[in-house]
């Protein structure tokens, strides 16, 4: 019998798991994919929002501001990439300037610090490439950018080091209420637990509906993105939003923590919870709208495009809800929803974890773990390391001098670390998200066969068993 089972190893589930790992609790995370960070958490803007956007009093507002404040310290504690680069909300029409004032007032009500409306001249000083039509902006100095993979993996790894169990390839197919808890069925086995945390992203409605009569409906809202070469990563230094529309925060242009430029997302509501394909129209729309914010982004510097799904809550117990649902389910005690985690879900994660852990503490009254390990060291990037650090690593293991991904200068040593860490990578996508091998401008054209070979060798499997991201995502055929 587990104390807590968390369903979903995205950023919210991992954050909850990490907070729970501070306590003497037997905790299990069930994930249907082959790795952590395989859903919404891997395909989003990577933004740490200021928190000016959500309605005051909502969970979105509260957890965003709190999550934002915690992010810097957490990034040091768990060693992931984060930068407070500042955000701006651009206004393209003098007549809409009042909307900036409204946003500012809302932000201040939410407790966001340092908000300021800047005119075009200051805007140009801060962002020389800003579009000609931008007349003013709300400047959000607390806005930041984060590596969403880095954050999620760091949380999960730290949880695992502190005793949380993770099981992958376990898709939950049914949940039954028992006298003192729940019986969770997956495709292959059953687990008993006192408390359930439903952090299943776009599938959180299905999981919720297994135990509650107050039905929930999540409509995936697809967002398409374009990622640009590092050569143009400095075309924006702040994260540049446009005044929000009904479908969300609009198209943004932002540098990433790794120095690329990212534009997107679109917003299309989908019936398909797995519909992550990009479209001609969507990508064209991203290009067109991004050009309003930053002019002259060269199209031929695109290195990849992708789409992610926001877990947009459309209905809950017959009502429209424009907020996260993070609460114990009314007709299912001990079952806690972490649902509707669309934007700013990533920014909130550090606060969400604590918020949920507090709820569970009140149910289970656990003791604090005495030997909790609060820090975690990530994989040191040879590309970013100093000369001394590089020499030291190579001395430790010559594999750190064998460059496997030439675009991002990722060495065999880093890839070996990614495989052999807690919750180590078992797929090429897993390697990519942990080391950046394959994330550069050639998009793994060069390193793919080499990474496949290393994975096969280290996992003692044939290369035909090496997958991109589990399931049927093989690269080469078995030998005849």
């Amino acid at each position, binding site marked *: 019998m587990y104390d807590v089972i968390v369903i979903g190893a995205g950023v919210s589930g991992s954050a909850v798991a990490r907070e729970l790992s501070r306590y003497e609790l037997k905790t299990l995370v069930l994930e249907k994919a082959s790795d952590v960070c395989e859903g919404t958490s891997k395909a989003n803007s990577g933004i740490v929002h200021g928190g000016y956007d959500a309605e005051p009093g909502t969970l979105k507002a509260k957890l965003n501001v709190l999550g934002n404040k915690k992010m810097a310290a957490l990034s040091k504690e768990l060693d992931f990439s984060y930068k407070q680069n500042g955000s701006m909300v651009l206004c393209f029409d003098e007549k809409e300037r009042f909307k900036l004032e409204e946003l500012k007032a809302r932000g201040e009500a939410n407790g966001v610090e340092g908000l300021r409306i800047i005119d075009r001249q200051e805007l140009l000083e801060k962002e020389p490439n800003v579009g000609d039509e931008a007349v003013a902006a709300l400047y959000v100095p607390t806005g930041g950018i984060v590596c969403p993979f880095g954050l999620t993996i760091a949380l999960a790894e730290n949880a695992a080091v502190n005793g949380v169990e993770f099981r992958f390839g376990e898709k939950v197919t049914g949940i039954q209420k028992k006298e003192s808890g729940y019986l969770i069925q997956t495709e292959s086995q059953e687990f008993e637990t006192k408390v359930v945390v439903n952090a299943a992203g776009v599938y959180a409605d299905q999981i919720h509906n297994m135990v509650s009569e107050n039905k929930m409906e999540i409509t995936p809202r697809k967002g398409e993105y*374009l*990622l640009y070469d590092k050569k143009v990563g400095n075309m924006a230094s702040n994260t540049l939003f446009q005044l929000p529309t009904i479908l969300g925060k609009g198209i943004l242009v932002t540098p990433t923590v790794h120095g690329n430029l990212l534009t997107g997302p679109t917003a299309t509501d989908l019936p398909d919870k*797995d519909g*992550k*394909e*990009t*479209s*001609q129209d*969507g*990508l064209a729309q991203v290009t067109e709208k991004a050009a309003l914010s930053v002019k002259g982004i060269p199209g*031929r510097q*695109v*290195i*990849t*495009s*992708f789409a992610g799904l926001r877990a947009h809550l459309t209905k809950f117990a017959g009502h429209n809800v424009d907020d996260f649902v993070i609460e114990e389910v009314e007709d299912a005690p001990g079952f806690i929803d972490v649902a509707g985690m669309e934007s700013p879900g990533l920014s909130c994660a550090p606060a969400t974890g604590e918020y949920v852990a507090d709820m569970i503490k009140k149910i289970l009254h656990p003791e604090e773990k005495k030997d909790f390990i609060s820090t975690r060291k990530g994989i040191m990037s040879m590309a970013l390391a100093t*000369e001394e650090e*590089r*020499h030291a690593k*190579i*001395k430790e293991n*010559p*594999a750190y*001098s*064998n*460059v496997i991904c*030439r*675009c991002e*200068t990722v*060495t065999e040593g880093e890839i070996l670390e990614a495989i052999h860490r807690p919750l180590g990578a078992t797929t090429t996508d897993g390697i990519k998200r942990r080391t950046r091998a394959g994330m550069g*401008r*050639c*998009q793994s*054209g*060069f390193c*793919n*066969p080499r990474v496949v*070979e290393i994975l096969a060798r280290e996992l003692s499997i044939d*290369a*035909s068993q090496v*997958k*991109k*991201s*589990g*399931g*049927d*995502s*093989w*690269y*080469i*055929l078995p*030998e005849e």
Partner: protein
Amino acid sequence: MRTDLIIIGGGPAGMAAALAAYEKGITDLLILERDKELGGILNQCIHNGFGLHTFKEELTGPEYAVRYMDMVAEKKIPSLLNTMVVDVQGGSPCVVTAMNREQGMFKIEAKAVVLAMGCRERSRGAMNIPGTRPAGIYSAGTAQRYVNIEGRMPGREVVVLGSGDIGLIMARRMTLQGAKVKLVAEIMPYSGGLKRNIVQCLDDFGIPLKLSHTVTQVHGKERVEGVTISKVDEKLRPIPGTEEFVACDTLLLSCGLIPENELSQGAGAQMDDMTAGPVVNARLETTVKGIFACGNVLHVHDLVDNVSKEAEKAGEFAADYILNGEEDWGEVVRPKIPEKTKCTLPEDRDAGSQLICIGCPVGCLITVKKNEDGSLDITGNTCKKGEAYARSEMTAPVRTVTSIIRVEGGSGKVVPVKTAGEIPKGKIGQCMDEIEAAVVSAPVKAGDVLIENVAGTSVSVIATGNLL
């Protein structure tokens, strides 16, 4: 460490530059190569068609490489293999930072540096092909490495996007290895490959070439399950209503090459937007003191023979610089970029009497008329080879087969091979069966006979590369 000249890259450009510098008297020089052997991309280009200018004969990629490797070995020009250069700085001296397992990270000072890093392929992302992101999308070169170096197949049912020579050659290669190549789609109204390659890589195997078509959607969540191809208009925009779903598990992309200039840019070399390579003067000197450039890193070449020629010059200029000191930089000279191949086969060609010669890249349209007495009137050819080709093609067509054979106990898994001469076209299948069944023991040297009398043709299958 200190040396006179460092050459970054041990492919055709690097080896030719090193040899030319050596001939000029620079004997203290070093080639840095990231792979485990010299030869560069030639090692995986196991097909023939190389060396007609340089060696006046048709060689496979590995054979072309081996000729240069032998010359490099003969002159005892040193090289460091499995060595990745991570930084280059110009000046006097130039400083190159590199990494390998034996020496860790180290710096070498040199009087001059020749950049010969080659190029890379355009990726799916760079082309913005919409759809899902499953496994099974490879650049043609990545697939070529899997098939020809690793001896592994990256898929069963294949669509190729891009009809440059690499795309055409991989369509044939995958077919010979047992895959079904559904079609080759080309967005332009003409092929970017040579006529001879359309004939011997596509027509020979009945693979359709869809001109003015492109892939507009990738399907499949985990592995590729198919692609949508659409016809494009004269502005290369997909025409709505022309979509066609093609089931496949693999999409190969052969959509252009990009000079690989991370190091050049790191050194601060001024770049030329047009060539995507560094700006150079008449002496192939970049704008950074002491750094020269040649081969595909300078601009993408059509033929390896031209790479070798340009690289020889770069080697000589670098040697002059080392021996005689700096000259006035002079003015920018943009290298002559070969005109893009724009090739279509005549549509109204009568397959019974007209054929495209595959003897050389020209691809003459030859008309053969059969006289009543059985003799043939052959017209349209521009050389004697054409006449001979037409005669044999009309009576008993023949081809050279290139492939790989498995090797046991060697430093690699497979060795590239070819039929020592042409074999009847009808025997290609049987020949491939025998090649696939064969296993040889290391070491293997280029020229070694690995199968005698293949498919009863009295022609041998010989190794075209070395394997220790």
